[in-house]
């Protein structure tokens, strides 16, 4: 029993780290993998989702709906930004980095000026359960479940729906897609909106567990980028396995020697992976096809 409870405790921690990495990274991975845009304002879409979710919850909306509302608002804001700024900078990756970084700073400082230095939290829903020597938060299990559901949902979206096929066609051969009558501008817009919406989803889901401040997006950013760098451009062959591997590494090291070791392990893995597999896990898995 003691062994089982230790095993469960480890799996729970690895799963928790996995969920955080997947949810933090998948929006970034879609925008980067499908559009080649490195979105430094990713953290601010997370912020947007978190603030909308917390505000809606405080106004009496049930949490699941608030989370979805947060994702929706972040997605719409993302689409507007794509129209206004990002669209004009396709094929200029360095310029996009500067532009999205600027957007990120404006959003953080704007939030501070308009909404103040902090927003009251809503409290984590659900309770806790005990197994062996440890007690666990039930909400964290919901997060793990949601991370997996998000991956499945995205897989179905890109392989089984008309939008998924049009999106993949547009990303692979934009001119051919255009010639076949696909509104590629709209597809880009929707894809960016999807990425922003996923960031908003992460923000909404983690809002009840975190301090709500204008800089909260930066807490996700390092982990998100490490996961995308390790994973490479493909979300299913890259982000998901990368998050699983990093989750296990992080949980094991943190349990052994504390948070610092966990952070070091995460960054060391990223360095080793880009040295050995410059195009990340998915680039390596797809090397035959490439």
């Amino acid at each position, binding site marked *: 029993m003691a062994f089982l409870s230790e095993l469960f405790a480890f799996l729970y921690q690895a799963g928790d780290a996995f969920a955080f990495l997947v949810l933090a990274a998948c929006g970034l991975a879609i925008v980067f993998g499908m559009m080649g845009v490195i979105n430094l304002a990713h953290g601010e879409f997370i912020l947007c989702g978190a603030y909308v979710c917390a505000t809606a919850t405080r106004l009496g909306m049930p949490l699941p709906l608030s989370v979805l509302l947060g994702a929706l608002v972040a997605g719409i804001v993302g689409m507007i930004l794509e129209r206004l700024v990002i669209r004009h900078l396709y094929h200029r990756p360095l310029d996009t980095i500067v532009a999205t970084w600027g957007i990120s700073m404006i959003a953080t400082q704007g939030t501070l000026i308009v909404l103040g230095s902090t927003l009251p939290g809503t409290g984590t829903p659900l309770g806790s359960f005990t197994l062996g*020597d440890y007690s666990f938060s039930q909400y964290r299990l919901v997060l793990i479940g949601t991370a997996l559901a998000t991956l499945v949902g995205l897989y179905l979206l890109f392989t089984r729906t008309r939008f998924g096929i049009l999106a993949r066609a547009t990303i692979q051969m934009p001119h051919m897609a255009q010639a076949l009558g696909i509104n590629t501008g709209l597809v880009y817009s929707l894809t960016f909106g999807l990425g922003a919406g996923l960031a908003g989803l992460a923000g909404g889901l983690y809002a009840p567990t975190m301090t709500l401040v204008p800089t909260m997006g930066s*807490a996700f950013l390092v982990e998100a980028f490490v996961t995308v760098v390790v994973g490479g451009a493909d979300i299913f062959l890259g982000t998901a396995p990368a998050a699983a591997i990093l989750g296990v590494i992080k949980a094991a090291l943190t349990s052994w020697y*504390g*948070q610092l070791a966990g952070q070091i392990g995460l960054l060391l893995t990223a360095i080793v992976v880009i040295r050995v597999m410059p195009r990340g896990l998915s680039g390596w898995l797809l090397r035959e096809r490439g």
Partner: protein
Amino acid sequence: MNKILTPIMMGMGLLGLNSPLMAEESIKLGVLEDQSGDFAVATIGKVHGIQLATEEINADGGIDGRPLELVIYDTQSDNTRYQEFMRRVLQRDKVDAVFAGFSSASREAYRPIVDQFKGLAFYNNQYEGGVCDANMIVTGAVPEQQFSTLIPYMMEKYGKRVYTIAADYNFGQISAEWVRDIVKENGGEMVGEEFIPLGVSQFSQTIQNIQRVQPDFIVTLLVGTAQSSYYEQAMSANLRLPMASSVNVGQGYEHKRFNPPSLANMYVTTNYIEEVDTPASKAFLEKWHQKFPDEPYVNQEAENSYLAVYLYKQMVERAGSTDHDAIRKVIAEGDVCMDAPEGKVCIDPKSQHMSHTIYLARVGEDHSITFPKVWKNIKPYWLGDAGCDLTQSNPATQYTPSNPPSKN
């Protein structure tokens, strides 16, 4: 008006006539505090405290008849900004004194610049102690005031097995060393210590590490808004151990920001928080809310900053100038004291730190504050006892318990 007066004043100056008009020149105070970034929650109130005190002093005729003028920069919770702006206020704005800094990392980043340009900086923040530097005046509380009171109290009440989680930089590391020493002195045992990099917001594994060893209480020395996510997460994992801290509540008013009961059973030693129930504190709070009606919380750092302006006024008036050596001579007299909102405070000439009334604040299940104990007039004795004496020499160094001043 000024255009006409200035040449006249200059002429009088040339003639050697030290007229009273000359005295109208303002005294400039540099203010470098984090008004954005990770620390802003705890530090915007410091700027407000300085503004409030300045307004009161100016309405009352200024310092020795000279108005006080503030030069304020937002240091953005960024150490390099501190260095930039410290150079700017000392070299370009030529301020008479600087009020600067929240995190100990930022203080140690700017301190060499203050020393280089012979500036005079007030650090109005509680910290890990040990700065023995004639160019610094510290009005915040230090470990012998916060930990020597708090840790023995907690050990007596809850038990001797202690677990520390601390922010991983000079503040957390040195504070944890103090806790370790005090726990050992009192016959207790450190069952765990974990240092958390700044900016970390996910604590599941840390919570589990704590559960594994079952301490009697936890010392939480977490800094910044990302790290304060810990309480909510510990609560939802049903980790409900008593907590002790020198930084929570009194700085980031977590008991107001988070839903009860995530901070229940947190004990904090602080030299001021707005719940302090004395007539002086109430009057102070009323003045504050008149000027800043939307202030979310008045914390210990806000009070430190407010009273520091008055201490500076007293020192300049007694010295008869803003000259730093003259000011230090006044400090050396050993009676630079004032009645602050927290109670009476005095500057210790040896270390240029300040004595405090230390309130033990306990957070209840509903996040209300009670004060089970108050220690009056706790002196910042450690530096002086260890051998720092700024009236004799200026080592401009930060000492720690494991690295004390060398005794000849």
